[in-house]
């Protein structure tokens, strides 16, 4: 399977970056989750350390497994993903948190199947695309890909989990592009999709076009444009954004310091250890800290793409693109939401947010990249 040479040629820049990100993650959670449980201020921090530890194990295991082996079990994986997403919708099996039936509760563990489904989807879809390479030239040939996407997205939307379903779109887009799909069609579809969403919302608000969504759901989507105009003077749907902007904005160049963020530590900012963790970074570690975080993740994705480029295997490269797409979209959405430039959808910041499922799915996905790197030379011409 592997030999010493392959280990020597591993992308250590990638591994070191990931390691530093994990260290940073521990630091961030030590402050962001401090006191969330008043009687046990380190409750979430301890859980987070556990997630990092188990995540590293998962990362290593996935890295060691030859990613190509998954192709032999596509059907099985597909059934697994499908069952996971269906079962969570069944009352009594899936649990409701924050108005969405997205959770399996197993004793002290709460698992979010959609998080794992993303990674399974990447593996499955890569295989799907690899088989159709050079046949992704026109819209007609792309339609099966969208049907493939529609199934998990539909199930995730039924929870409902808008944020995660959007991640599926981002993953699909990145993977299609990497697999060589006609870029004109892809960008056409992207523009068309975004355009029609904007048009629909515009028509809804300006001309009263009925939409199959409640006002409060739409509000969450559009309120970032003007958070004070939420019908409650900034105390409704806009509240989180306002508090997040205050947190980041008041952080300044150097930040207020570890545990010194008044917005986060005094609970003005909701979800500050999960979806809004980037606002805590902005507040306590300032512009320098925030930029540093973005640069580290950017570098991680850059190294991942370098691995893809070296892999000489479309299947592996498409998997990596999917993982990069997933991370990129999570970062864009989570940080963008905290900065008031993206709609509120509530998805975690990769690795930095508290939450086991997110940590594990990200570590597994990042492990896939190392697996690609580790097994790249097994194809010999």
């Amino acid at each position: 399977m592997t030999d010493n040479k392959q280990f020597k040629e591993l992308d250590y820049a990638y591994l070191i970056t990931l390691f530093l990100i994990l260290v940073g993650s521990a630091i961030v959670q030590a402050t962001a989750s401090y006191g969330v449980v008043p009687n046990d201020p380190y409750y979430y921090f301890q859980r987070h350390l556990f997630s990092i530890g188990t995540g590293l194990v998962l990362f290593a295991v996935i890295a060691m497994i030859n990613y190509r082996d998954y192709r032999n079990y596509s059907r099985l994986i597909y059934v697994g993903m499908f069952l996971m997403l269906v079962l969570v919708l069944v009352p009594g099996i899936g649990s409701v948190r924050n108005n969405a039936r997205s959770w399996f509760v197993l004793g002290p563990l709460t698992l979010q199947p959609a998080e794992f489904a993303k990674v399974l989807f990447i593996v499955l879809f890569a295989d799907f695309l690899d088989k159709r390479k050079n046949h992704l030239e026109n819209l007609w040939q792309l339609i099966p890909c969208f049907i493939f996407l529609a199934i998990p997205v539909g199930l995730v939307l039924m929870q409902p989990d808008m944020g995660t379903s959007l991640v599926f779109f981002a993953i699909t887009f990145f993977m299609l592009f990497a697999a060589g799909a006609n870029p004109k069609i892809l960008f056409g579809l992207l523009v068309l999709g975004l355009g029609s969403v904007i048009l629909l919302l515009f028509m809804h608000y300006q001309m009263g076009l009925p939409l199959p969504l409640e006002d409060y759901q739409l509000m969450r989507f559009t309120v970032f444009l003007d958070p004070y105009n939420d019908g409650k003077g900034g105390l409704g749907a806009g509240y989180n954004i306002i508090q997040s902007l205050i947190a980041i904005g008041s952080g300044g160049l150097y930040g207020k310091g570890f545990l010194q963020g008044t917005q986060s530590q005094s609970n003005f900012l909701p979800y500050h250890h999960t979806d809004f963790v980037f606002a805590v970074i902005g507040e306590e570690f300032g512009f320098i800290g925030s930029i540093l975080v973005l640069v580290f993740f950017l570098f991680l994705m850059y190294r991942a793409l370098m691995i893809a480029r070296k892999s000489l295997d479309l299947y592996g490269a498409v998997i990596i693109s999917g993982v990069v797409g997933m991370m990129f979209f999570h970062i864009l959405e989570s940080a963008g939401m905290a900065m008031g430039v993206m709609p509120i959808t509530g998805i975690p910041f990769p690795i930095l947010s508290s939450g086991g499922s997110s940590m594990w799915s990200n570590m597994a996905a990042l492990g896939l990249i190392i697996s690609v790197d580790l097994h790249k030379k097994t194809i010999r011409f």
Partner: protein
Amino acid sequence: MNKETTKNMVNRTRVILAAIVAIFMLLGVRLFYLQIQTNAMFTDRAERNTLRFVEVEATRGDIVGADGYVYATSKPSYVVTLAYIADKEEREKAIVNLAGCMEKYGYSEEDIREMVTGNARKFEATEIASLPWGLEAMEMISELSERREALPGVVIKTVPIRSYPLGTLAGHIIGHTGPINESEMENVDPEIYDMNDKIGKSGVERTYEIFPAEDDYYGLKGNKGIQKYQVDAASRPLQEMDFSIAPIPGDTVVLTIEHNLQTTLEDAMDAVILDVYENESDKAGSAAGVLIEVDTGKILAMASRPTFNPEDFVDGLTQEEVDYYYRNEMRPEINKAVASAYPPGSTFKMLTGMAFLENSNYSPNYAINCTGAYWEKPHIACWNVHGQTNYFEAIAQSCNSYMQFAGQIAGIDNIAGLATEFGLGVDPGLTDLPSVSDGFQANPENKFDLQESYLNMRLNRYKRQYEEKVEDINQQEITQEEKETLIEKAEKEREASEKWANGIFAFEKTWQAYDTYNTSIGQGMNNYTMLQLANYTATLANGGTRYRPYLVERIESPQGELVWQSEPEILQEVTVSEETMALTRRGMKEVTEPGGTSYYLYYDFPIEVAAKTGTAQTGRAGDDKSTEFHGLFVAFAPYDNPQVAFAGIVEYGRHGGSSAGVIARSVFAEYFGEEDYKDVNAANDLNSPLVEE
């Protein structure tokens, strides 16, 4: 992978990387905008989120006596407030939890909810409870502190509350404080006061509330401070931070009041009132008295009855107290010593006498023959038949006949003019208390004005009646001719009435001889306060210098530094000759000598006292003019080296000597250290052989 695919792969990863870099750069730009460009605004917003500024009341300054006795001070009390909580569920939770702690102290859930919903300033904290320092407060506060985690928005502050350790003693001088009202709010600096403040309402509490000094201000109020609190999203205070502005306590006001004299005055007053109530009149209960230093104008003691207890006003009045203070004919809230003007009765006679001696060539030894009434119409009676009476006897025995004669010779203008010089019927100059009355000194001009206003009232009434009649006539269903006849008749009636009234008032408006006679013996329209009578006596005693009366000696900063010191101030040098004043003082001396109206009170008194008794018609509807009189007494001592002067009145006391005179005796005994003569009841048992009727 073939070469073509590899090349494409490289290109695609490049595109992906470029896209990611581009979007991350946009995020970086956004970060730069938020954290660098608009950082100041967000910093301010974050502070406003988390910092609460709470005004801290300054401790009000103390009011202390000349000898250090504390009349008004401030002690800490605990105030429990509940911050405004926007979220309804959170608010309800806070109320329920708070009630859980406070129920056993008498604050139920409903009470608290009512207070919160009833808060006029709905976004501000609601005051739930205010407890004076004590065991109960400590218990409750410690329980609340223990459960602080479960009580978001609950803040416990210590707030100074007013305390009056001596209760009613000098209560009228001290006055009281209360929540500022709207009209008071209009008259104060809005930068210093807000609607939650308390303000002095009466007495020194009011006059020394605040007064400007260069670019600062002095006074009891002090300067409010501002305390910073850091709070969390539930408005739960996380920590108390340094004062943004530390409060500065108010200044200490030091009175001229001597505790022993004030106590003696008030005790004597109470004893005399009780005696009068038991032996003379069940209308007894009101009295006033002032003891003043003759060479300075310093007020050493001042009292008014019924009593006023500032302590009653601290927590708001009970219904019973409201009835006592505000639905009481005796008006306990009024400081009668400075605010109530009474007819002076015979205490005025020294003025008549001085005007007489100054403006005539009569010798004080010249005697008239008192036959029990004056020989001129309307023959106003004397209370006795004095026979041959000279100047000294006239004062000593309070002869009405002599004084009417003296008044007639002197003339009203000289009498009224001299009275004004002695401070009667004019602003007494006391600025240390609010609501100080000028009294009233009658003279031909103001009699004319007064009667003219009565006449005009009456003429207006006739006019109104006539107009009503005309309207009435016009509404009747009769011919125009008949109407005119009736209107003409009404007109004639009106003219007749007007003519009659004009005729009557032509007489009333004019100063009549009997007005002078009445004025001369202290009856009629004249009304003076005890402060005015005391200062007039003091002026006579010191040889004609009228000082500004004052009762604040100095103001000290909270650190004890002198802020302001009062100095004796001369208001007037009277134009009476020293000789006339000496003769008049001698007359007053004879009041306490054999044959004098107060001999029985002072015959064995170790200090020589010069005095004058007075009885005054109450002038009140329903009172019997022949038996119901107020008793007045003015005096100074020692006779040959006057130090203090006193004026007092006991309502319905009937005789000046036996009522106010007894009080004066007790106060003088205390002042001169003659303890054996202080006892009021012993004085009451003295029987007067000569009692002015």
